[in-house]
Each structure stands twice: as structure tokens, then as C-alpha cells.
């Protein structure tokens, strides 16, 4: 017993010293969509400045919840909050990077970019109305692809997610049945399918399950070598998810600082615009001025030095004009 007490004292002593040495640490949590790029930025930022930015991908719903509860220094969400919501919870919001959500499939014999889908097909698959891959709706879009007569295994997110918000916003925009039955949000009541946790979880389940379809952020599709599909956009063209089509979607965006940049990028009218594009947002607690300054310093650094890294990971960096708008927004809010 005495031995134990001595050990306890010694350890307590060690810890009290350890505290003093701890490096500057910022905690952020939220969207899984930008996780690869945030963690890559944080890795580089740590090398340059020594400051630690711990970003955990727990889902956009979680990002909103945890910053509302003030348990983290910043939250991240792919779903922009409305100015009313931000006002109610005393939050600030700005976009950090853009990207796109892509449907991915694992069908034996079907390669990336081979399968063409339109909004009607995607909507009916996720509604559970379209049950087989060789259904006429899909076949008529893909006369040349050899589709198996197998059931479609639908994969979706199990957690509150901005990727889901972007995806369901897209579906609600193009498909009245979806809007009435399910609606849009960070998590919804799915009519069919299995749920994976995070973009990682959906990618993992889709990869492992034959004849499946899922939706993930493009970077996840690329890194996991998942077979993405082509989509028909509102202008009537089948487009491939890539920088050009994402940028085309972003080009039509008009972010307004007065509305805290609240804007969706889905179903953009551009000729080559990818229909499921989205920006991802950072949320700050208004009264946490100290940590806000540090968070903003990090993003300022990332805006200056992080574009190349972002592109490597297949994210679309914000245009310069928007970055300037954001810097002005920080200043206006006293950060």
C-alpha cells in the first residue's frame, strides 16, 4: 500500500511538470470531407511553427454540436449554417476549401468513369425504388456497359455529415419525391442501405461490398481508387468529377460575407459544372477570441501556403477574391 502511494506521488509529480512543457494545442472537430487536407495542412504547419492543430473527423453534425457546446476551439461543417442559426449560438462561419461529392460504385467489371447516371437514377436508387443494376433506367443510360442482374447495395453515412447534407441537398433539388419523403440534412432517415461512419466508413464499405453504390468526397474516391460515376448536370451534359468541373461549379458561386458565406454549390448552372459540389466551412465561437486568433492564423497560413497541398489531395482552393473577403470578414469580427 505504501509503495503504491509513493508511486502515485512520483507519477503526479511527473505529470505536473509535463503540463508546463505542453505545446500550444488547438482542437478542432467536425466534417470528415476536408479531413485529409486539414490534417495535411496541420502536419506542415506544425513543422513550420511548432503549433499543434488537432483535427478530428467526427462528422459535420458533430462539428456543429461540439462548437455549440464549446468543447472544441473550432468546428467544421460542410453544411453552411444560416445566419439565424449562427446568431442564436453566437458563432462565426467562413469557407476554407471546396470540393465535390461523387457517387462511387463497386460492380465487377465496371471501371472508374464508365457508369453514367442521371439525377433520376441516383434518386431512385437511394429511394430503394431501383433495385437491380440491370434495370432499364440504368441500362438505357449505359447501353455499352455490361451490368449484372444483382441487387444494388446502397451505402450511406451513419453519422451526421456535411457530405450527406450536400448529397441530400442535391437530391432534394432534382427529385421532388426525395424532397417529400426524406428531405435534406446532415443526417436523414434513409429508406434503404447500410451506414458507414465517416467518409472513410462509406469508402470502406463500398470497397468491400460487391454491387454497391456509395457517395464520398472526391479525394476519398481518388485515394481509395474507387470507381466514380459520371453524372448528368442541369445543363444536360454528362460530366466527370475533376478540378475543372468543380471549379466550374465554384465559378458561379457568390459568397456573401454579410450572410456569413451561407451558400450551397449543388446543381450549379455552369455548362461543365459538377452537380454535387460544395464548400466546407469553419465555425468559431464568437467569445473565444484568444483561440480564434490562433485558428485564423492557421487558416491565413493555409490560404497562403496550402493551395498546392490542397490540389494534390484533389480539393479546390478558394479563389483569391474570396480569400480576401474572408480576411476582411475576420477583421470585421475583431479577430
Amino acid at each position: 500500500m505504501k509503495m503504491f502511494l509513493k508511486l502515485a506521488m512520483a507519477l503526479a509529480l511527473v505529470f505536473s511538470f509535463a503540463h508546463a512543457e505542453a505545446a500550444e494545442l488547438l482542437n478542432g472537430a467536425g466534417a470528415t470531407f476536408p479531413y485529409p487536407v486539414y490534417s495535411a495542412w496541420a502536419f506542415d504547419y506544425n513543422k513550420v511553427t511548432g503549433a499543434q492543430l488537432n483535427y478530428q473527423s467526427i462528422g459535420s453534425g458533430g462539428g456543429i454540436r461540439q462548437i455549440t457546446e464549446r468543447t472544441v476551439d473550432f468546428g467544421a461543417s460542410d453544411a453552411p449554417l444560416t445566419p439565424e442559426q449562427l446568431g442564436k449560438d453566437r458563432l462565426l462561419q467562413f469557407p476554407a476549401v471546396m470540393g465535390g461529392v461523387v457517387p462511387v460504385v463497386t460492380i465487377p467489371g465496371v471501371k472508374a468513369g464508365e457508369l453514367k447516371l442521371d439525377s433520376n437514377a441516383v434518386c431512385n436508387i437511394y429511394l430503394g425504388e431501383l433495385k437491380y443494376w440491370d434495370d432499364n433506367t440504368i441500362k438505357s443510360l449505359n447501353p455499352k456497359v455490361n451490368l449484372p442482374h444483382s441487387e444494388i447495395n446502397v451505402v450511406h453515412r451513419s453519422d451526421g455529415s456535411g457530405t450527406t447534407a450536400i448529397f441530400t441537398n442535391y437530391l432534394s433539388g432534382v427529385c421532388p419525391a426525395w424532397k417529400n419523403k426524406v428531405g435534406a440534412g446532415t443526417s436523414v432517415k434513409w429508406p434503404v442501405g447500410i451506414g458507414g461512419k465517416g467518409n472513410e466508413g462509406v469508402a470502406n464499405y463500398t470497397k468491400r461490398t460487391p454491387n454497391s453504390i456509395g457517395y464520398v468526397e472526391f479525394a476519398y474516391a481518388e485515394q481509395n481508387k474507387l470507381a466514380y460515376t459520371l453524372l448528368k448536370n442541369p445543363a444536360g451534359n454528362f460530366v466527370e468529377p475533376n478540378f475543372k468541373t468543380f471549379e466550374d461549379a465554384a465559378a458561379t458561386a457568390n459568397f456573401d460575407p454579410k450572410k456569413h458565406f451561407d451558400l450551397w454549390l449543388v446543381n450549379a448552372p455552369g455548362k461543365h459544372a459538377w452537380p454535387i459540389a460544395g464548400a466546407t466551412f469553419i465555425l468559431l465561437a464568437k467569445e473565444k477570441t484568444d483561440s480564434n486568433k490562433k485558428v485564423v492564423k492557421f487558416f491565413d497560413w493555409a490560404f497562403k501556403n496550402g493551395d498546392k497541398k490542397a490540389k494534390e489531395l484533389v480539393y479546390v482552393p478558394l479563389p483569391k477574391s474570396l480569400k480576401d473577403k474572408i480576411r476582411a470578414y475576420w477583421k470585421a469580427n475583431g479577430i
Partner: protein
Amino acid sequence: MTREQIRKTEGFIALTLSTLAAFMGLFWLVFILGDVLVHGIKALKLSLFLNDPAPPGVEGGGLRNAFVGQLLITVCATLIGVPVGVLGGTFLAEYARGRGIARIISILSDIMVSVPSIVIGTFIYAVLVRPIGHFSGWAGAVALSIIMIPVVLRTTEDMLSLVPWTLREAAFALGAPYYKVITQVVYRGAATGILTGILLSIARVAGETAPLLFTSFNNSFFSLDMKQPVASLTVTIFQYAMGPYDNWHAQAWAAAFVITVFILLLTITGRLIIRWRYK
């Protein structure tokens, strides 16, 4: 067939099935352990223990933060859980011996041992994370210690009860007050038993994931600051195994290997001590 033969056949079939069942139990153990071993050793590299995690796509990351964090949380949980458990068990076996309240607490502890650990996680989130304003290593340690207390408490009670009452009487006869009798005579007599209980309780909590998810959270950097989120092996395994990257999977296997070996060693040590001391 005669009745005799039917009885014999029935017996033969039933006993064969039982034997098969026993070997099925062995089979699962060998299967799971073998799998963890094979995949784990393949991914075991020195860099795993020396480096901190790198972002997806960057080679050469390790899990140093998670190894140290797990150790830190477990040690802190032990520092909280063991004293409370041992003292609580002392009360039940000594001061309250034979009283109704001792019985009730003892039964409640037995139930607490099996209460879903994820519920304890939500409880700690509500009392230690949200009010304080951030996830912290301490919250994780407290959550684990709550799981630990009833285990240690019950083994201490049992072990102290095994110490012969005459031993205490001998000490009383020398004029020693009860607390001295307990700390200097009874504890000494039950020391190995209590130690075993502590070892087994550490083995029990070291593999817990659910109560850490919303308490100590996770941290992609190396940190010794228990007031901040701390990485743990188990939460990291959950994140990495669910993730899509192959090198994450490999690291998850390696981490699983280390934690399994650690826990099995603790368990085996505990069992050997019991065997050696009480049989």
C-alpha cells in the same frame, strides 16, 4: 436397436458434440489470436513506436502518441480506481462485515461490473466534458476508473474475507487499533490476492474503447497534457480500422497486436499468481 444401444448411441452423440464444442472454443481463440499475430507482426515496425501519425498519403507515420496516451490514461485511471476500490472493499469486508449494507453494495458492485461501458462514457461527457468545456485525458481516466472501482472493490472484499479471523484477533490481543490491524496484518495476508485483482482490472480497462470515445477523444499529436484530448490505442484502432487506407489498416493491426499481448500477459500473470498462491 435395443434400448441399451439407443442409450449408448445417444450418449456417444452427446459427448462427441460436447467435445466438438470445446474444440470450437479453442478454434476461435487460435483463429483470432493467430490473425492478430500474423497481421500485427507484419506491420510491427520501430517507426510505429517512435513517430507520430502522418496525414493520409504521407508515409512513415507511427502511433507513438497513442501508445503513450493509452499508458497515461490507464495509469491515471488506476491511480483513481485502485485506492477507491481497495478502501471500499476494506469497508465491506471489515467494518461492515456481515451487515446488510455490505451485502447491498457488494451486489450493486457486481452489477456495475457489467454495466455497458458506453453508458459510462455518456455520463462522463455530461458531467466532466461539457461543463468544463473540452474533451480531456482526465475525463477518459475517470470513465475507466468507474469501470475499475467495482472490480477492485469486489476482489478486495473477497480476498480480505479469506484472511482468517483469528489472525486479526491475535493482533487485537496485542492492543492494536483496527486500522493498524487492517493495514499491517490483513492487507499483508491478502496482498497477492488484491494485486491479482488490480492486474485483472487493469487488463479489463486497458482494452476499453467505448467510454473513451466521448471523453478523452483523440489527438493526432503527441501530448502529455491530461487536460487536453489524449490519443488512445483503442480509439485509434477504431478510427484506423474503419478508415479506407491500407497503411491505416496495417497500423490498426499492429496496435491491436500490442494491446492484445499486453492484456493477455496481464491476465496470464494474474491467473498464475492465483494458481501459485491459492491452490
